[in-house]
């Protein structure tokens, strides 16, 4: 038997009958409805809760990440802004503290640069540019004196704004650096510019010092998206990044983006005030959400396991309950059928008794009339004593006697239907039953052997039930056999308080697979030929009622043997015995 067949509940293959209430007995439908309803009612809230928990936790973790990112961005941008502001102020301070004439002196300027380099890191050189755009004085590693800057874009810009901080560029030095230019107005209405170059290694150090972990990255870009500091994953300085540049915002902002490979990124940025720089910190969203993924996994597992458990329990309970209903219904139907069957038998019995009784009266009249004719011949000797006539009368009389035997047997059969326990001669009962089927046996030339061992005491049992049992078994055997078959009935004492009756035929036999089921109600191989499938189940019930056991052995093609073991004395239940003694 396969697993699915084992798991399949008994009611699954039940064929619903017809009738006005057939939907009440569609067990598969009841089962489905139960499973569906309970499933929905239990799983819906669970899924709903799990979903809510999922989104709440996810959003909490996400907003926490955004906050953390914004904080880092904002701190870093302040640091950078402070760095640049500090240097700008220093340069500004120099213009205020020193007269133009002093600054034009290269020695003085060199001293100032030296002091600057001592106080602030990153200063590379200093230069003084007059209002015509020519560099008047320069101190630093290169020979840049007398260069004319008047055509440069930044020169024009610083004239307007007073301060200029350049993008990072390589310049003559081939080292990334930026330039801070401060304009100082002179009392005579003209002006000069102080230009300082700052090594951007400082920024890079600051940014690479950030604890970002994993695939985190922090860098500066200018407003065109060109890298100003080296990045870990977006290329080196002066490379254009692939990210969409965020819109200007005075505060640190966080948004989500994708890398060119489609990896989701969380990007934090801040426009650094008064500089062309945008600070960008990029992290892989997946790494930020790592904790969340673990939680999500647990949540999912929990959900799946509880759903599976609930479903299993629902399926189990539904199958169990519906099966109970099914079994109860089977029993109910069987009880109904049994009652019907018993009633049918009882009415047949009553009918037979009525007919037999009615026939007995005319039979008695025939008997007397014929007897009278015979008497007239023998006693009065009035008529010529004709041997032939006497023969005729005698044959009428013997026929009447035969009829009488038949009616008496019929009456006896009917009478025993409702009488309970009485002493029974087993041989007599067997003969009586065979008497009913004797004609059929004769027509079909079935040989019937009865072998009842001597010394079987009278059974104290229910005669009617015993008759029915034997009648059913013999009938079955007749149906199993072809014409010319051989039926054997054997009875002997089985033990001190029981007898054994064997009914064997040499008919078609019962296949092994059906053998287990033949006592089940409604199991029939003759359904198409009008069998109800009740005969053997009722026989089984009757044997049980008589306190006996019934067994079957069969080989296909060889025949079947039913063995009944009956107690010599039927033990009646106390309640019943009491009831019958009262009535």
């Amino acid at each position, binding site marked *: 038997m396969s697993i699915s067949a084992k798991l399949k509940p008994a009611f699954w293959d039940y064929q619903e009958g017809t009738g006005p209430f057939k939907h009440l007995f569609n067990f598969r439908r009841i089962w489905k409805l139960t499973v569906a309803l309970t499933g929905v009612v239990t799983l819906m809230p669970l899924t709903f809760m799990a979903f809510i928990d999922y989104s709440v936790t996810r959003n909490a973790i996400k907003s926490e990440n955004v906050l953390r990112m914004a904080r880092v961005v904002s701190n870093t941008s302040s640091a950078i802004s402070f760095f640049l502001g500090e240097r700008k102020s220093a340069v500004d301070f120099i213009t205020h503290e020193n007269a133009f004439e002093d600054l034009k002196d290269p020695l003085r300027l060199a001293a100032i640069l030296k002091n600057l380099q001592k106080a602030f890191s990153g200063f590379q050189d200093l230069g003084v540019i007059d209002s015509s755009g020519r560099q008047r004085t320069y101190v630093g590693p290169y020979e840049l004196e007398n260069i004319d800057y008047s055509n440069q874009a930044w020169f024009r810009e610083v004239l307007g704004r007073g301060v200029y901080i350049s993008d990072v560029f390589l310049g003559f030095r081939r080292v990334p650096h930026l330039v801070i230019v401060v304009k100082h107005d002179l009392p005579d209405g003209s002006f000069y510019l102080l230009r300082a170059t700052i090594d951007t290694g400082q920024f890079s150090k600051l940014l690479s010092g950030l604890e970002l972990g994993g695939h985190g990255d922090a860098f500066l870009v200018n407003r065109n998206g060109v890298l100003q500091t080296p990045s870990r994953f977006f290329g080196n300085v002066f490379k254009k990044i692939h990210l969409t540049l965020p819109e200007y915002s005075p505060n640190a902002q966080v948004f989500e983006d994708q890398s060119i490979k489609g990896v989701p990124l969380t990007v934090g940025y801040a426009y650094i005030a008064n500089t062309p720089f945008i600070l960008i910190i990029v992290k892989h969203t997946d790494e930020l959400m790592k904790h969340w993924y673990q939680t999500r996994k647990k949540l999912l597992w929990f959900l799946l396991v509880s759903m599976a458990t609930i479903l299993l329990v629902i399926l189990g309970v539904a199958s169990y309950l519906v099966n109970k209903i099914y079994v109860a219904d089977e029993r109910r139907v069987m009880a109904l059928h049994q009652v019907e069957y018993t009633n049918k038998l009882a009415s047949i019995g009553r009918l037979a008794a009525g007919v037999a*009784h009615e026939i007995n009266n005319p*039979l008695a009249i025939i008997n007397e009339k014929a*007897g*009278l004719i015979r*008497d007239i011949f023998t006693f009065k000797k009035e008529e010529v004593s004709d041997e032939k006539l006497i023969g005729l009368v005698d044959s009428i009389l013997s026929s009447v*006697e035969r009829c009488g035997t038949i009616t*008496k047997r019929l009456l006896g059969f009917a*009478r025993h239907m409702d009488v309970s326990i009485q002493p029974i001669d087993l041989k007599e009962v067997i003969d009586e039953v065979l008497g009913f089927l004797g004609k059929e046996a004769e027509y079909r030339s079935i040989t019937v052997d009865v072998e009842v061992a001597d010394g079987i005491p009278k059974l104290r049992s229910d005669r009617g039930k015993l008759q029915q049992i034997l009648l059913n078994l013999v009938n079955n055997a007749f149906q199993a056999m072809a014409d010319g078959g051989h039926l054997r009935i054997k009875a002997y004492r089985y033990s001190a308080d029981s007898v054994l009756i064997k009914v064997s035929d040499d008919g078609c036999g019962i296949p092994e697979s059906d053998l287990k089921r033949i006592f089940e109600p409604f199991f029939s191989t003759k359904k198409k030929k009008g069998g109800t499938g009740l005969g053997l189940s009722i026989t089984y019930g009757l044997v049980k009622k008589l306190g006996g056991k019934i067994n079957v052995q069969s080989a296909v093609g060889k025949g079947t043997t039913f063995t009944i073991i009956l107690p010599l004395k039927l033990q009646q239940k106390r309640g019943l015995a009491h009831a019958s003694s009262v009535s």
Partner: protein
Amino acid sequence: MKPRILIVDDEQEFVDSLSERLAIRDFDVTTSSSGEDALEKVKKYNFDVIILDVKMPGMSGIETLREIKRIKPLTEVIMFTGHAEVETAIEGMKLGALDYLLKPCKTEDLVSKINMGYDRKAKQEERIRQAKASEIMSSPMSALKE
């Protein structure tokens, strides 16, 4: 003296034939077709044996039997019954019937049962007579009481 017999049965044909057959066998036979009629006859005449059908329209066999036994306790009754009424027959025997027979029955059986009943009644009457005789012998005055 011939034994006096009353046959009670609602089947007229049956009663006629049976009475004739018994008459041939030297019995004094009277017939009756109902319980009520039978009781009238029992009151009027002295029968030795009554053959009574259990199943009759009107007064049933058992009721008739009870009445007969009340009126004439010494009269022997043989009951005719169908097989289904063996219980009734047993009840009848408890009420004092001699025996029962199943219809249709062999005439020989019936005759032997009638003879048995007749003998029993005769013996009983004989004993009663003797008892009476001895009573009269012991106190002749008591004879006058009757």
